């Protein structure tokens, strides 16, 4: 295939897959049919574009092919009355020249992709199915790709997807953007699914590789789409900015041997400036709406790090204050831990240690390696090396990835053998 055609297809896939699937589901209510026909349209493009040239409107071309395939398929199933009626509806649509409806209207409530997102993320579906379905239907990942990303066998993932689609069809899960009174609650559900997807990619919870870039890229792409489709929802901008800030550090997060490099020690010249600039712009616009929410606050925190030229120049006082604000809206245990870190950095390791110790005695986050790791870090900064070593050992036992264990072991070695660090609390 010519390079130009290959690029055009790749680009069209990113732009058009979700749109085609979403439109076909609306017309036929048949998720598998929609996915199959979208797949076939792209296969057809791969056959024809290299010789025929890339059509002027690739999206319209693909939509037409996919829709014709759907009509053919439904005609073949003529024996079934209900299907025949659907086929008739599709044929009518074509003559009605409704293509504009499928292809135009980039923003807002009328976009089929928004219906698709809300349906994929419906709270009556199990959380893991919501993530998988969003990746399949909207991002166009194959079942195998999704299974690999979540480290589950392909048949398990296939079953998960089949069950979710079955429930949508048989339990009466509506294919629509929810009515106004449900929008806030459902929107935060959609945002949670996208952030979970991103985090799954960002800190692979098991396995050897720390970053599975694909899921992060997909999550960013979907967050971008959501932000475009819901321009009046500042939290969608908040989430996108948050992801971009975190994503911008991907090159600096690990060293050449795959070991973790902490935020403090990262080479900031390897942070992706373009993404940081974008995130700043998106976040500025979101907070201007004056409807602050947890994602915007987290993005504001991430911005403090991203915009500090050197680790030592980080505005920890502002970060600690932002975490306090965040705790007012979501009393999440992880946020309590991060708050403790920020307080420790802003006012000294004693204050941080006090907060972490309180968190540890409360039994919250008992199995989370970063709790003892944070305690260890404060103890190290206070020169209490043997206590720090114990806490590091505890953290090593709880760590879930090889990279985390290696990092913690390195720290453990440093406090076990080295002299007390001379550096002051701010690090």
């Amino acid at each position, binding site marked *: 295939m010519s390079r130009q055609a290959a690029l055009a297809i790749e680009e069209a896939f990113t732009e058009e897959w979700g749109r085609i699937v979403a439109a076909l589901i609306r017309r036929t209510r048949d998720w598998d049919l929609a996915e199959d026909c979208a797949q076939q349209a792209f296969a057809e493009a791969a056959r024809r574009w290299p010789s025929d040239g890339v059509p002027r409107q690739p999206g319209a071309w693909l939509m037409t092919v996919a829709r014709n395939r759907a009509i053919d398929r439904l005609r073949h199933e003529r024996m079934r009355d209900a299907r025949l009626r659907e086929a008739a509806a599709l044929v009518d649509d074509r003559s009605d020249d409704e293509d504009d409806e499928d292809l135009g209207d980039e923003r807002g409530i009328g976009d089929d992709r928004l219906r698709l997102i809300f349906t994929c993320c419906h709270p009556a579906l199990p959380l893991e199915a919501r993530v998988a379905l969003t990746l399949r239907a909207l991002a166009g990942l194959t079942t195998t790709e999704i299974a690999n990303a979540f480290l589950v066998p392909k048949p398990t993932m296939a079953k998960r997807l089949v069950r979710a689609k079955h429930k949508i069809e048989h339990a009466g899960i*509506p294919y629509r953007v929810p009515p106004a009174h449900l929008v806030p609650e459902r929107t935060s559900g959609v945002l949670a699914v996208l952030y979970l997807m991103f985090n799954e990619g960002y800190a692979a919870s098991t396995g050897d590789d720390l970053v599975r870039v694909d899921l992060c890229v997909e999550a960013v792409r979907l967050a971008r789409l959501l932000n475009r489709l819901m321009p009046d929802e500042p939290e969608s901008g908040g989430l996108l900015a948050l992801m971009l800030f975190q994503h911008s550090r991907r090159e600096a997060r690990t060293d050449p041997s795959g070991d973790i490099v902490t935020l403090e020690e990262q080479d900031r010249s390897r942070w992706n400036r373009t993404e940081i600039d974008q995130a700043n712009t998106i976040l500025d616009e979101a907070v201007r709406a004056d409807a602050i929410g947890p994602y915007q606050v987290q993005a504001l925190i991430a911005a403090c790090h991203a915009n500090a030229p050197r680790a030592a120049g980080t505005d920890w006082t502002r970060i600690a204050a932002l975490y306090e604000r965040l705790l007012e809206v979501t009393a999440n245990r992880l946020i309590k831990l991060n708050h403790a870190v920020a307080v420790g950095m802003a006012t000294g390791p004693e204050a941080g240690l006090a907060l972490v110790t309180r968190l540890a005695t409360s039994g919250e986050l008992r199995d989370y390696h970063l709790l003892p790791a944070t305690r260890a870090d404060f103890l190290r900064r206070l020169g209490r090396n043997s206590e720090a070593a114990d806490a590091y050992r505890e953290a090593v036992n709880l760590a879930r990835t090889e990279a985390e264990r290696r990092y913690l072991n390195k720290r453990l070695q440093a406090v076990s053998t080295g002299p007390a660090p001379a550096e002051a609390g701010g690090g």
Partner: protein
Amino acid sequence: MKYMMLVCRDPSIELSPEQRTTIGPEVEAWISEMDGRGVRVQGQELEGVQDATTIRVRGGEVVVADGPFAETKEQIAGFDILDCADLDEAMEVAAKHPVAWLGSLELRPFAEG
């Protein structure tokens, strides 16, 4: 779309004296609201599982047992048949039922065809 809404109570949760006096009128209020909206087709409170009888036919023999067919923590205290636009509406109707605060409500769509 029709749904069977199973009203499940957790017998280990003791109602306070106040709850015991208010739950009846609350359920009545829910019934009249949902009847008024036309989303409740019918419904019935049931006697407790101590009065249940389970029937099986095994090897041609009728096997009768005292009690429910499944020993679960939650017990079906009643049911309502809902006729709703979609699951979103059924979820909203269920969430308004007073037992949602004490037990749980299971929405089972009617099988099609």
